[in-house]
Every structure is written in structure tokens, then in C-alpha cells.
């Protein structure tokens, strides 16, 4: 049962409620949504002793100004912001106890694009089709199916147990607006001219201002196709890089549609989706194609980092 709430004084640029996504309904056209950076979302939950299913707040580029009307334990992971609780700076990637009436203000952003605020017990907006994730285009889930606005009150749970104040190591954020992201070959890579594959892995692509939670448009040389065939619309996954006929690639992110009909040249590995999620419009990304073994090893390394935090949360007296 909710025992308190978070009062939104200022919403920031785009703050949404997210959990791990609305899985199981893509057959009827319902997009998955969920966090752009799954690693930082889970890390924030683990730092406050939550399970994997708890909802967090995803903060984008400009953070919110919030008041907690009950005492709470929070953690903020992902993009590096200056964060003040009642005027005192707090650390990121760590559980922090805040008293009833505390004001949590996101200040200057130093690195990365998206931060996740977890509260012990989770954000308890009503689930829709089994998930609290906000999907903006269809207006589903989260708080009334939309990004937060000033005046919103979000129900939160009473903390279930004392959470030890531990510090986690966060994601290595892209420095100086540049990141390297690893790819696996896409299901239609052979539909592209060899020059297109060469360009994809040798040129820096700029994240277009016309990018959002659905996908990033990547500005660079047009990626030419070797065939005029158009694929029949087929199911999609997060991280797919699809290329419409004009040749400008689109990297599909959390709010992607369930299916689409453009050829897919490559797919970002799961371990590097959090890195892609931390790129902002105007930042640059460089791609390399790796083996399935490297993709698997990178994902296991990420998971190990999370397991270490989970274990610490349980064993500390």
C-alpha cells in the first residue's frame, strides 16, 4: 500500500516512470517501453534494496525538482548530475536516506544523458498490462501515460526493511560526448553495399536532434543498399539499426514499435545499450562489429557488477 508520495515541483525535460518493460503483448501491437539504460535502472533499484520489477524515474538531460512527503531511501544512477537534498550535495550510485519533506533537486549535468532515481519500495503508479513503464506515443503506463509535469504526485511504498548505505560503481559514461558501441551483424546485412558496412564501422555518426525514446537518427554518410527489395514488416528488437531508403540509419531504442519493414544492417549488443542510452543529441558514436562470444562476455561482465551490489545489500549487517 502506498504510504507517501513524491511531489513534482519541476518536471525536468522528460521524466518518466519506467520498469523493465511491458513484455508479452507485442503480438497485439503493444510496445515494450522500459528504461533506455537498463543497467543504471537496475543498479539504482539494487542500491536501495529493490527487486528487479520496481519502477524508477528516468530523467533526461535536465533533471526534476522533487519533494518527498515521507522519509525515504533513494539512489540515483546513470548520467552524472549535481544533486542536492535540502541544499546539501549527495553522492550518486549510493543509497541515501532522505527525511520527510526533503527536497531533491537535480542540478548541472556533467556527463551522460539519462539518470534513474530509485526509491526503496518502488514508484507505485498503477500497472497497465502488468507493467508501470511509460510508453509516450500510445499514452500507456507510468503516470497517466505521459511524462511528469509540475504538480504531479507519485505514490511510493513504505520501505520494507532497513537498507544499508552502500556505494556502487556506476556505468562508465561516455566522455566528451563520444562513445564506442559494439554491434552484431543484422539480419539483412547482406542487403547492403559493402561500402555501407565499411562506413558504418569507420565513421563517427552524430546523434540527430530528431532522436527520442523511440529511436536515434544517426547523421553520417548515407548507407547504400545493394538491392531494391523491401522486407515485409517483421518483429523488431531494441538496438536494431534499420535503414530507410534515403540511407539515414535509425537506432531503435526503448519506445520502438513492435514491428517494422526497413532492412536491418546491424544490432547493438545488450551490454552496450546502456552506453547508447547515455548519448545525447549532438554526441557522436563509433561502431565496431564484434563476435557473439564478445557480446556474451560483455553482458556477463555487466551482470556480475549488478550481482556484487545485490550481494552487498543482503550481507551487510
Amino acid at each position, binding site marked *: 500500500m502506498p504510504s507517501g508520495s513524491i511531489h513534482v515541483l519541476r518536471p525536468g525535460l522528460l521524466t518518466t516512470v519506467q520498469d523493465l518493460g511491458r513484455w508479452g503483448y507485442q*503480438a497485439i501491437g503493444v510496445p515494450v517501453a522500459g528504461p533506455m539504460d537498463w543497467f543504471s535502472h537496475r543498479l539504482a533499484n539494487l542500491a536501495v534494496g529493490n527487486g528487479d520489477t520496481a519502477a524508477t524515474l528516468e530523467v533526461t538531460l535536465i533533471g526534476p525538482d522533487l519533494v518527498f512527503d515521507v522519509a525515504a531511501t533513494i539512489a540515483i544512477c546513470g548520467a552524472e548530475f549535481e544533486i542536492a537534498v535540502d541544499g546539501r550535495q549527495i553522492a550518486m550510485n549510493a543509497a541515501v536516506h532522505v527525511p520527510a519533506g526533503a527536497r531533491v533537486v537535480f542540478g548541472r549535468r556533467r556527463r551522460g544523458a539519462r539518470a534513474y532515481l530509485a526509491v526503496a519500495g518502488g514508484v507505485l503508479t498503477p500497472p497497465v498490462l502488468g507493467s508501470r513503464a511509460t510508453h509516450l506515443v500510445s499514452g500507456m503506463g507510468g503516470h497517466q501515460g505521459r511524462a511528469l509535469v509540475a504538480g504531479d504526485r507519485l505514490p511510493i511504498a513504505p520501505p520494507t526493511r532497513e537498507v544499508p548505505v552502500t556505494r556502487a560503481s556506476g556505468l562508465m559514461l561516455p566522455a566528451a560526448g563520444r562513445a564506442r558501441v559494439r554491434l*552484431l551483424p543484422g*539480419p539483412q546485412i547482406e542487403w547492403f553495399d559493402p561500402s555501407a558496412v565499411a562506413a558504418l564501422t569507420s565513421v563517427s555518426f552524430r546523434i540527430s536532434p530528431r532522436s527520442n525514446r523511440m529511436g536515434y537518427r544517426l547523421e553520417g554518410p548515407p548507407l547504400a543498399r545493394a538491392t531494391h527489395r523491401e522486407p515485409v514488416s517483421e518483429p*523488431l528488437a531494441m*538496438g536494431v539499426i534499420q535503414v530507410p531508403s534515403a540511407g539515414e540509419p535509425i537506432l531503435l531504442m526503448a519506445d520502438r514499435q513492435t514491428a517494422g519493414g526497413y532492412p536491418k544492417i546491424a544490432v547493438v549488443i545488450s551490454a552496450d545499450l546502456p552506453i547508447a542510452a547515455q548519448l545525447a543529441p549532438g554526441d557522436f558514436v563509433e561502431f565496431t562489429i564484434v563476435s557473439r562470444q564478445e557480446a556474451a562476455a560483455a553482458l*556477463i561482465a555487466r551482470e556480475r557488477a549488478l550481482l556484487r551490489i545485490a550481494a552487498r545489500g543482503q550481507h551487510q549487517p
Partner: protein
Amino acid sequence: MTIRPVGDTMLLVEWAHAIDPVVNQKVIALAARLRARLEAAVRDIVPGYCSLGVHFDPLRTDLAGLERAIREEAAQVSGEETTVSGAMHEIPVRYGGPHGPDLPAVAEWARCSPAEVIERHVARVYRVYMLGFIPGFAYLGVVDPAIAAPRRQVPRERVPAGSVGIAGGQTGIYPIASPGGWQLIGRTDVTLFDPSRATPSLLAPGDLVRFVPV
């Protein structure tokens, strides 16, 4: 049939690369079989026109085992299953006027009267090939080639909920107000999608749809 990975979180099972009711029925039959066998083991099973996506958690999935299960179930998809159809839905539609602002344009493209466009649109029983784009949006086919006008060159920023449109060989109904580029010929009051219902989407892959003018 081929099975190909899409990144490290999805397998794409694909038959002939075509929009074909027999192929589509195989996809739907395999999706039902995989749901019965694997539902708890995978994240999502998503049928398309002629392919099926199986989304999985790479850290909790034996990929070779998953592929084997898909191949075993695909081999079991029988001729009988491929002739089974889903539910039949009759959708009442107000054609033309403010409900179907593109009806004159489709008639012009087809070089016939608006009345003939309506006649040809209601004459067929359509198959739900797949859902996508927005929750509850069903891709219905196949439209009579005589009225299969292409998408509008400039999409609308807001298409009202219930709008019935044509885009080439496809027809469909917008479940909620959204941007859209299909040629709008009518509108229905039927609620296509409601997440609070036990069955949120009125239409499911494999169902049949007939439009009834009102």
C-alpha cells in the same frame, strides 16, 4: 524455414518472404505452439506477416535449446492448423464525408465513384495478418487492387480514433488517435483496444474482418 538471431535478445523465425495467408497461418500456429511450450521461458513471442520473433533474456537462455524447441514445434505445425481461422468480426463503418476525408482522393486514384470504392471495400472478408504500429492496430489484407491507393504523400499529424484507412493492399483501423499516413475512407465507433479488458485487443492475428456500411 530459417532461424536467425537479431542481436543477442531475439530469434527471427522466417518462412517465405511474402504476404501470403498460408505462410501467415503457419506463423500464427507456431506462435500458439511456442506459447504453450515456452511462455515462461521467454520474454515474448511475436508473430509478423511471414516471420516470428522470439524475445529472450540472453543470460537465462540456452540458445541451442531454444532453437531446437522452435524447430521441433515448427515440424509439428500441421496442415490442419493452417486451415483454421480465427474469430469473424463485423465492423460497422460510416464511409465518406467528415468520417472519411480521403474517400474522394481514393475514388479519383481508382477512377471510379466514391460509392464504388465503398462497394469494393465492403465486398471482401479481410484477414488480420499481424498487429503493430500502435496497440491494437491490425494490418488487414488484401484490398481489392482497383482501390489499393498508396499512402498519402503528407501524413496527418492526428488521425481520429476509429478511422478506417487504405494503404496499398492493406486496410486497417486506428484504435487510438495518432499520426498516420493512410487514406481515410470511413470511421467506426467500435473500441479496438482497451487495456482494462480481459482481452485488450478486439482483433488477433488470424481473425477475419468484414466492414458493414452504416
